[in-house]
């Protein structure tokens, strides 16, 4: 049975992206008499190139005599458990982006820094909490002050 290696996954995702983008390119206004090369031409050239390269990567991975450099055989659950720190950090960043317009820069940034530092540094000692809160409580207002008063840029 064929295993899903990195190269095969990449090629398949790219081919799906190409398919979706190609269909969407049908919505681009067609060429006119004064614009013989329409707006869809350049992206379609790129889509063809990406499609061909993805097909080549897929073909090469199927024909390759070398074993895959990846470590196959890991279930989705194991993969999530293995990458939980990175995935949690992405989730925290998404939450930060969502909270910014609701609670403002200072509160959202404090929340993001405290939570992500706790995730990465750990929460098992008073020293770590002191470092966490010291950095968060200093940096969030400091960056706000630099942008607001030094660079005249309003943060939300």
């Amino acid at each position, binding site marked *: 049975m064929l295993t899903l290696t990195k190269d095969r996954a990449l090629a398949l995702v790219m081919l799906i992206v190409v398919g979706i983008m190609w269909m969407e390119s049908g919505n681009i206004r067609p060429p006119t008499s004064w614009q013989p090369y329409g707006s869809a031409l350049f992206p379609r050239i790129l889509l063809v190139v990406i499609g061909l390269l993805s097909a080549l990567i897929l073909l090469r991975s199927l024909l390759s*005599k070398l074993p895959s450099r990846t470590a196959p055989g890991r279930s989705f659950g194991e993969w999530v458990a293995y990458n939980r720190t990175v995935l949690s950090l992405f989730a925290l960043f998404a939450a930060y982006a969502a909270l910014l317009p609701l609670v403002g820069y200072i509160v959202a940034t404090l929340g993001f820094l405290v939570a992500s530092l706790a995730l990465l540094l750990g929460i098992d000692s008073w020293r770590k909490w002191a470092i966490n809160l010291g950095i968060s409580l200093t940096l969030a207002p400091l960056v706000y002050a630099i942008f607001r008063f030094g660079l005249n840029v309003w943060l939300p």
Partner: protein
Amino acid sequence: MADFFLQALAQVGSPSVLGLIVIGVLFGIIGGSIPGFTVTMAILVVFPFTFAMDPVSGVSLMVGVFVGGYSGGIVSGVMLGIPGTPSSITTVYDGYPMAQKGEPGRALGIGVAASFLGTLISVAVLVFFGPLIASFSMNFRPWEITALIVFALTLVAGLSSGAMLKGLLAAALGLLITTVGYDRNSNLRFDFSVPALGSGFEILPVMIGIFAFSQLMGNLEKLRDEQDKAKGVDTNVAIPYATILRDMASQKLNTVRSSLIGSLVGALPGTGGTVANFISYDQAKKFSRHPERFGKGIPDGIVASEASNSAVAGGAFVPTLALGIPGDLPMAIMMGVLILHGITPGPLMFEQNPILVGAIYASLLIGAVIMVLCQLLLVRWFAKISLIPQEILIPVVLMLCAVGAYALNNNLFDIWVLFIFGVVGYLLWKAEVPLTPLILGVVLGDNLERQLFRALELDSNWMAFLTRPLSALFLALAVASVIFSLYQNHKIQRTHLKARRDDA
């Protein structure tokens, strides 16, 4: 040019701009000295702070980060044995053993002196060759520029990590990203009925997302073990000035040769500090009377490595300023700064913005002097800062990236763009897709499409790209670079197969 240079020097020499160069150099050294942070990340973090500045101030700050960043890698290289930035890998070969032998101050001093001289020599190269190439490229028309961009992208795709197909895929993806939103004919493309996509993606959040997230999350996975080395490092360093003067006096040829290699390699698209580093180290070893002492703590190795990687800074400005084609990632971001300030790098920049070109020269020179002073006076502090753990650095940098993306247009959508391209960049990095061609594609996409269609509007025959000599030459070079990279890949695969058969 001399008049413009003096005018630029007067502007760059003003207290406020000098202050910015000092801040830039300090931040660059700190960025370069923290393992895994890299020059590019330092530039990305500082980039948003230039939004509210005039072009000379913004560019001077960024040049300061550049100069500092390329020299900063030596600190962690010598103290921890971990290159702070990929362009100082070979510094570790001799710097770390010298520090282990009880001479960290000597290793750092030699590295700083070589960095300084490397920067000065590369500025001379930039001053001499930049205008020459710019005046030559004034004859380029849309066919030549299109072919040159294609050549640069294929070269970068081939050289970036040896995976030619993935490199080309990344470059094409980067170009595709620039097609979202309204095009040159005011037609809407790929908006998927989402109004926010109508204006397309800003280069900055896309670049930061792709690079910063993949780098930082990658650091999380890789650097945990390496940081254990930081425990118990003695940061009490003293620089032995007299010894360093003697060392440098015996390294004149090595310094000049390595600086010229760095400048030349920096000027080639797709290469950069890392390539320059290895070539000049190899050459220094070949020319040395004691090649057997390389890797054991010889000054020659540190000089070759640091002179060449610092010389890359000046060399890399040559194609960026003269042709509008950035050779590597830091330069792509530098080009983003210029575009943000309403300046289009290319042949006309030398005519239309001579003061800004002069300001770049002057900032490089002043930055080099400030770099030496900062490194020599504050080296103990940089050594301490290089020990900052990634666990603290990563959340702080992510927060700064978010603020930078927002500050560009005061637009929250840009933070989501940053996040989405962060996820994309991380997944591509996991799939071993080189990210430099992707980012160059994003930077060059608009120009490539504009030049391609300008050429076709002037002459609808596609064969014109092959009948014009220079355009045909660039396209032939592009094809040759693809074939060469494929051949190399094939050779590497054959070697792997042979090794596996031998093991069996």
